[in-house]
């Protein structure tokens, strides 16, 4: 008896080994290396090597120089998440409750963009929003845009690109959550004097919250760190923190600053996510 229990206990630990090794190699080691790099002396270079001097000022310097793209990233990420939520909720609701036999086809269509590369899809937005493209011309025609107005190289283009690229990450968890809602609960709310509007906010919305929370996290986190959209659809004025880190790392070869910024971004996002999940009252998601 005790023999089998012990056996089963140790089997569990053996099964953990591959996962633990994987995480140690590809998560713990890089994380350590990142934090260490962020404390190197900035006077070094990748040719001459860096010296570990616990140079905490790296963080302060990075914040002072790049607080604007940092705040911009958080704002763009938040806006894109909001638009994804609005669009995605309607879409997920329609697929879950109204699509009937078209349900699976519509889900495939939601995922279909993934069959093309992220980069190609973002580049095609460049064509869509081009200065004498159809969209800009139409908006100019109805005087939403001035005659020399443009969409490319504006925050609108970057946020639109982010919204487009991350929409499936919002739709899928929302769909999973809304699809699970028992239609009879909505009937019950209507039987208990809730009109469709009130019924939505008292029953459907709270029951879909797990999907809302995971959808917003899956959208917000990558959107804040994204730099492709800002680089392809924006101008230097729309620079996001991702592109700053990338250019510090690859162009300026300023590894400590790039690492410090990365750590700042990571800590900010983890802090915001924890706060958000607490507020949404769905700790059991994590």
């Amino acid at each position, binding site marked *: 008896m005790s023999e089998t229990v012990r056996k089963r206990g140790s089997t569990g630990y053996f099964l953990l080994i591959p996962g633990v090794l994987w995480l140690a190699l590809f998560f713990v080691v890089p994380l350590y290396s990142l934090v260490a790099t962020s404390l190197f002396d900035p006077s070094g270079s990748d040719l001459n090597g860096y010296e570990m001097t616990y140079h905490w000022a790296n963080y302060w310097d990075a914040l002072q120089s790049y607080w604007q793209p940092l705040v911009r990233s958080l704002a763009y990420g938040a806006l894109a998440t909001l638009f994804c939520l609005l669009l995605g909720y309607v879409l997920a609701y329609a697929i879950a409750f109204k699509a009937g036999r078209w349900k699976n086809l519509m889900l495939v269509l939601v995922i279909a963009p993934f069959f093309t590369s992220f980069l190609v899809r973002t580049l095609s937005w460049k064509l869509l929003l081009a200065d004498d493209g159809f969209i800009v011309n139409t908006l100019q025609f109805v005087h939403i845009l001035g005659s020399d107005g443009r969409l490319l190289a504006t925050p609108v283009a970057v946020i639109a690109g982010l919204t487009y690229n991350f929409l499936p990450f919002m739709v899928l968890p929302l769909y999973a959550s809304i699809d699970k809602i028992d239609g009879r*609960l909505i*009937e019950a709310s209507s039987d*208990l004097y809730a009109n469709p509007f009130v019924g939505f906010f008292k029953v459907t919305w709270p029951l879909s919250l797990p999907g809302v929370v995971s959808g917003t996290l899956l959208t917000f986190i990558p959107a804040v760190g994204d730099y492709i959209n800002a680089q392809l659809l924006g101008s230097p004025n729309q620079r996001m923190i991702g592109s700053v880190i990338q250019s510090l790392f690859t162009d300026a070869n300023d590894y400590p600053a790039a690492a410090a910024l990365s750590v700042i971004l990571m800590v900010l996002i983890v802090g915001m996510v924890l706060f958000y999940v607490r507020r949404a009252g769905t700790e059991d998601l994590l």
Partner: protein
Amino acid sequence: MSQVVEQEPTATDSEGYDGLRLRQVTKSFGSFHAVSSLDLDVPRGSFIALLGPSGCGKTTTLRMVAGLETPTSGSITLAGQDITYAKPYQRPVNTVFQSYALFPHLDIFENVAFGLRRRKRKDVDTAVREMLDLVELDSQARKKPAQLSGGQQQRVALARALINKPEVLLLDEPLGALDLKLRRSMQLEIKRIQTEVGLTFVHVTHDQEEAMTMADTVAVMNAGVIEQMGAPADLYENPQSTFVANFLGQSNLIEGTIQSRAADVVTVDMHGIGVSIPTERCHADGDKGWVGIRPEKVLIGEPGEALDAPGNTIPGGVVTDVSFVGVSTQYLVRMPWGQELGVFEQNTGRRRMFATGEQVELSWRPEYAFLLDFSQDASAGAQKADAE
């Protein structure tokens, strides 16, 4: 309360009527008629059960009253108001759903308070406390539905609907998910609450015992129409169709030729044996009919044994099956014309049990027999055990 259910409903306007009234209500899904030209009057304060097998249209009828389905044609009025096309949230009707449909994200208190809050009632707190007290769940107020047992959830569902004091409370197979013992006690509980609050209850069920225990009027539905409606005892003792005779309890139905129709008695030739049936229990046109008799009304005795059944004695039976079930013994007796009849004899201890193969004589009092139309299927509504 003065309206009697069996009264032929007047097809004219429903304005003076204070109960629930359905007139010529039809619901079609494509070419399938779930409910066909249904007429139903439910007097205020009564407890009516719609009883029938699955697919008979009882739940569709209920959903039309709740506003969750729109009738294809016909009208529904409640206390003189036409509610045929009113939205569910606009009509003074509440439902206890089959699966309870409790809101999983709200605690018991908020589930029960839901209807009051939507209508911005004052004193929600007191009302909810009182209602939870009535269903004996006051100690569970802050639990979530998933933390309660099936029986408790059922009571929450009842409380959540009752607290709104609806004109009509609809119960859609509310006890279906409970085990037998709990179901029996909840039946009595719901009956008690109905008497206490005095609201109109419409109960949908496929369980004939449940319908008869709880309701003061039972409407037996089959294939989208009401076959017969009346007090449980009337339906059981004097069924008017083979479906009702078989669906409500069991019946022996024996082919017979009508010999004469007098003012108070009809005589029928049943495979050469003359039996008489009171005229008011005769529901057959034409010259043939099904003679119906409940198994527990049939007396079994040795050939020539004088039993308390003047009038109808059928000799020549052979016992083919005996099952002793404690309170009674159930016999199958093969008659000379080949048909097997069921006989229930109560275990009074005063009579001996018959064995398989014994020659017996069956008899019954004429006032217990009934005569049904020969055009109906003798097996309609039988085998309800499968539907369970």
